[in-house]
């Protein structure tokens, strides 16, 4: 009993604080409410332009739906998924896309790192070096792709001469990769350079005092320290590269087995007007990208930004 009284006393004493707290939290709640209200339009727009199409695509992927026969839609369950996943065309495109993704991302990482170091270390004309390195990234992909296409066209291209590399599978693929790498190395370098800026100079100097070579300093100090930046850069690029479309569309438009999954999806959806199959492919691409992102976080999760142990 006495304890209760004591408690009540304490409560009475704290009442002022409590009221103040409540007021503060009321204010906070009001603020939160206002925040919500202010966000609402953006959320509605986001839902309308992203969530709705995604859900609609998933819905359509369960139907036999063709724009040319709009009244003949019928539910086919997983039929479209079976059709796509049992088609050699899909798997060939999947293989090509994976190949382009892995090769171009690796090349971009290596060259991007090189460029980042150059940009980071340059003393003379730093602004000029950085700006000129970024030029390819500033050019619209389709425009750049057309330049590459003309350069590699038999007869008129300065790179092609008398050969016609864009009429064969492997030369075409390497040209596609070249165009991709040329275009996105600056992006990679930019992300990596942000990481390089975080490496303390003292550490590098100390290591060099201890007799570590430049090579050792790079692998033992720089790389572990910028691992989060590398992960982000590689993840971004992998996701982008897997959706490759414009370069292939302009350079070969998928001829000679150079189609990526996005090209095949486009051909079925836009050219073939097959909403069912096209949506199925779009959903499959979405799932693949989700898996890639998940694997990256799982495998290299320790170094992911925000969880960095290093």
């Amino acid at each position: 009993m006495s304890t209760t009284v004591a408690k009540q006393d304490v409560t009475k004493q704290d009442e002022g604080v409590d009221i103040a707290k409540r007021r503060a939290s009321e204010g906070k709640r009001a603020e939160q409410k206002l925040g919500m209200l202010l966000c609402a339009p953006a959320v509605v727009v986001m839902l309308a332009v992203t969530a709705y199409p995604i859900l609609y695509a998933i819905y359509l992927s369960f139907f036999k739906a063709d724009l040319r026969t709009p009244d003949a839609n019928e539910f086919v369950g997983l039929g479209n998924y079976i059709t796509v996943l049992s088609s050699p065309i899909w798997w060939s495109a999947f293989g090509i896309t994976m190949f382009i993704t892995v090769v171009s991302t690796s090349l971009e990482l290596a060259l991007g790192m090189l460029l980042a170091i150059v940009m980071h270390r340059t003393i003379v004309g730093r602004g000029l070096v950085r700006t000129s390195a970024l030029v390819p990234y500033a050019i619209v992909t389709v425009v750049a792709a057309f330049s590459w296409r003309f350069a590699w066209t038999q007869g008129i291209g300065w790179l092609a001469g008398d050969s016609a590399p864009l009429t064969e599978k492997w030369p075409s693929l390497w040209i596609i990769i070249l165009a991709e790498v040329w275009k996105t190395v600056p992006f990679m370098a930019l992300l990596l350079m942000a990481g390089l800026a975080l490496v303390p100079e003292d550490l590098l100097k100390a290591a060099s005092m201890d007799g570590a070579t430049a090579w050792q300093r790079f692998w033992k100090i720089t790389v572990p320290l910028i691992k989060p930046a590398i992960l982000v850069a590689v993840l971004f690029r992998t996701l982008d590269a897997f959706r490759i479309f414009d370069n292939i569309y302009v350079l070969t438009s998928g001829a000679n087995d150079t189609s990526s999954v996005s090209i095949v999806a486009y051909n079925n959806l836009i050219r073939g007007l097959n909403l069912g199959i096209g949506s199925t492919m779009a959903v499959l691409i979405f799932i693949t990208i989700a898996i890639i992102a998940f694997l990256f976080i799982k495998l290299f999760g320790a170094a992911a930004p925000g969880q960095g142990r290093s």
Partner: protein
Amino acid sequence: MKASARRRCPKLAAWLVVGSLASATLAACGSGTASGGVPVVNLYGSASDADFDKILGPCNDAAEGRYKIVGNLIPSDADSQREQFVRRLAAEDEGMDILGMDVTWTAEFAEAGWIRELTGEKKEAATADVLQPPIDTATWEDKLYGIPRSTNVQLLWYRKSLVPEAPKTWDDVLAAAKKLKAEGKPYIIGITAAQYEGYVVGFNTILSSLGGTLVNEDSTKVTVDDKAVEALGILESLANDGLASKSLSNSQEPEVFAQMQNSEAAITINWPYVLSAMREANKDVAADLGVTRIPEFAPGTPSRATLGGMNYAISKYSTHPDLAFEAAMCLRNPESQLKGALSAAGNVPVIRSVYEEPAFVKAYPMKDDILAEMETAVPRPKTPLYQNISTIVSTTLSPPDSIDPEQTADELKEKIQQAIDGQGILP
């Protein structure tokens, strides 16, 4: 917070205003009325033909201010053109009135309900004095959906100095080329065999001439049989016997034309535009140019050419379809047809009376060959799914030197049936 909220509100309002303005502008785009209140008839397709302004101008004058035809540019290749059409039609775009439609799209567009059926007086006007094969290309399930505008059949072009006698059969063609090769003279046989629609045209011609078909009459069943195997054999041996150009698998019409122009080819199969174009490109070759019907692939049976050409259709979403019909009829009346035929575009007329015009007879010495081929010409498969079938044929048969007649025919059969059944995916 409140201050910032107040600061943000005008911004938000501003964005809302911008948004509604943008949508108002977008809405205005579709309505198709010129500033002076004269309805605009938007033409898509054929507007980039050579000298098209000489057809468009008089038609706009003839309209006497009731409408104004505006020619809009679209991509130059048929596949991209179709892509733009179907995308905009599926979105019910009001900005398109007259569609310059490739002959193979009629079934697809009609079945989807994107183009208007022509009946009664309009049907009569659109078909009066018009050759029957072009009318058939504008017809789907016994209903007329297009105004025939131009037609096309390929011909056999050869160098008279190299091939003194016009080849009558495909064996004659091969024999002539072999002889020329042995003599060290230009010997190449040029056909369009790149992976595209023109390759399908060539294959369809060979197949039809042998008496085969790809699909049955109402396009419900694949009919690939031993005739197709034979046709594939002809392509395969042409590709592998050293009588075709090295860039056969990359040859579209311009490449085949160039082979002739550069005196590389002795014999080519190409459209009638070759004559007028060659007169501009290489006068010597043009003077030496011989022309005849496509050779007999089955000796004794006349060949059957594949019909090309273009029809004008009126979009279902056009807001002034009657004016659009009138405008389209002017764009293809006998005077316009003659101008189109004589220009570098070389559009082959569909109206009979134009074939009697002295100027036409002079410019088209091969008009009798064209008319003769037209009589036995075959359309490409008529089906809403034509695009899918065409894509399958051109990819399955590419490159020509990798054809294995029996196996390729089986593959073709399986894939086309899948496409008809709405299964399978497009490459």
